[in-house]
């Protein structure tokens, strides 16, 4: 189904899921509280049948002081896309893991932890994916300072 | 006297083997270091020990190979001269091979050749 009635269907399924504006596809914003429930429905409910987690990443909105976690979902059955986002404070970002719905989330979440420091509740093997285990700091944060990095001279 | 040819043959073989070793022994710079002597594992430090109990099948397989390799080695000289000795040599070798095949069947039935 196309994005319009997909949004209404999701709103029906999850009352406090507000559509996220400024996105190029059907996008929904969910508070962290009932994030896991919505994901479970999106995965198992045959009306949605989002069996493929295309992409999971995070955006560091340092002015608003929050991380926005973005999940791009796709359903091979119905052929429609949905973008689900939830935001957590920058100080102690804890998000429930979606590993048991999509197996790949375990590794994408490890990458987001490695780059942003977002902690995943219930993740079986949360450790850095790319950087050394004893690396200080999280590189993709806007306020990451590193004397090794060379700025381009103007 | 016609066995004399073996001597230059072994000399040449020895020269070939030890010549290479001697050349590298004489010419190559020899600088052992702690890292150079450490085991090479794709650039990584090794994890855990490699002194572990592994499947006995490897040992049995090697043993079977050894037996039949030696058997082949014995058959070479026999194959050269058995024409002069006629049927006796043939029966002799037949018994030799049959005994070994009996051993092989025994090992096969006992499952020595089943791979893990």
């Amino acid at each position, binding site marked *: 189904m196309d994005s319009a009635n997909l949004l209404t269907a999701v709103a029906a399924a999850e009352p406090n899921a507000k559509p996220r504006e*400024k*996105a*190029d*596809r059907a*996008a929904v914003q969910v508070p962290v509280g009932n994030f896991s429930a919505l994901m479970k429905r999106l995965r198992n409910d045959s009306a949605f049948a989002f*069996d*493929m*987690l*295309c*992409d999971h*990443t995070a*955006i*560091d909105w340092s002015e608003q002081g929050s991380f926005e976690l*973005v999940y*791009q979902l796709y359903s*091979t059955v119905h*052929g429609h896309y949905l*973008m689900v986002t939830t935001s957590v404070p920058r100080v102690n970002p*804890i998000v*429930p893991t979606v590993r048991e719905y*999509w*197996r*790949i989330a375990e*590794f*994408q979440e490890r990458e987001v*932890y490695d*780059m942003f420091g977002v*902690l*995943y*509740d*219930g*993740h079986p*093997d*949360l*450790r*850095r*994916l*790319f*950087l*050394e*285990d004893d690396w200080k700091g999280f*590189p*993709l944060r806007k306020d990451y300072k590193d004397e090794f990095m060379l700025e*381009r001279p103007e | 006297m016609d066995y004399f040819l073996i001597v230059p043959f072994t000399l040449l073989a020895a020269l070939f083997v030890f010549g290479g070793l001697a050349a590298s022994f004489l010419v190559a710079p020899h600088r052992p270091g702690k890292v150079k002597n450490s085991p090479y*594992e*794709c*650039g*990584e430090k*090794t*994890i*855990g*020990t*490699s002194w*572990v*109990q*592994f*499947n006995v*099948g*490897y040992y049995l397989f090697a043993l079977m190979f050894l037996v039949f390799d030696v058997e082949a080695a014995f058959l070479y000289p026999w194959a050269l001269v058995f024409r002069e000795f006629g049927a006796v040599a043939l029966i002799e070798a037949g018994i030799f091979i049959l005994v070994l095949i009996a051993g092989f069947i025994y090992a096969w039935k006992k499952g020595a050749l089943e791979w*893990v």
Partner: protein
Amino acid sequence: MSVHITTLDDRVRLRKDDSSPLSTQEYFVNMGPQHPSTHGVLRLVLKLDGETVREVIPVLGYIHRGIEKMGEHQSYRQFVHLSDRLDYLSALINNWAVSMTIEKAANIELNDRIQVIRTLMAELQRIQSHQLWWGVFGMDLGAFTPFLYGFRDREIIADIFEETVGARLTMNYIQPGGLMYDIHPGFVKRVKAFLKYFKPKLAEYETLLSGNVILQERLRGVGRMDGQTALSIGATGPVLRASGVPLDLRKSEAYGSYGKVAFDVVVGKNGDCWDRYWVRLEEMRQSMKIVEQLIDNIPEGKHMVMKPAVKIKLPEGSYYNQVETARGILGVYIVSDGKESPYRVHLRTPNFNNLWAITETAANWRLGDLVAILSSLDVVVPDIDR
């Protein structure tokens, strides 16, 4: 539920569970960063029991250059050349992915000539990538001749690219707003010569390797992965289609001029190494069919819709766009805050997901089969680490 951060050392530790003193013990071996059959710096920590692989733990980051951090400091046009260095075997398709995301966000309209040339270039790059995969796949299974055959035919496409683009590997050819150059006058002639040359050669590939009993023995039924597992680890491209799921963005999204050409999606049945092998060979034929249909009627028009010096500024918002590369779906996710360089760039790379198929399928196979499975996944490591 608690948040518990572990490290590699306690992930790679033997649990003491030897039930009887006679049982064989497991040990760890590094199939490490510098290894002939990992095609790049991918480190697999293997938990072995004798020769049988019990568990594979991939360790990444040996070629992590931080491309996403660099993306935040570069303008949109500059970011295109970084996309070459991701999956350098489908460099043109990566350029297309980034350019298409930027064009959709800034809604730049393209004429037909650009779309047809882009589709032609992408399909030639797909054939070239599968040729290299076929050569290296043969070499991994111990046959050196396919390596020579594959690279010999690959050089011809490299000449075609070099004549038009000027580069053999990192193209930087498809820019947001069109193409860097128009195609070289000799392009159509060379592509037709290549098609006539390569059709019998593909049949030669079949007789050389596919018909070989040893190869069939080593591939049939090895590393089986069913559709559901493939979808749950997000595998895409030939790996997913070999498991029976007919997901091909060229068909479902019909971007570029894929809508105007007739080709069929190659789908395997039981997702083992043989199907992954057979699907890629068949895909080469489909790509040649696409090139054949497009090469004769390249429409006239300008090769660049926008002056190259024009600064591109995307309106605020988040844009996500996917393209089918030789190895799967490459998604480019750009969050823009209206400035000249993106606020956040994220690349959903196909190899990242295809790699984890090794942890699903490699258990209880022997070491030789592990190499076959890893090579059948056709993993390019800088694409994983970014």
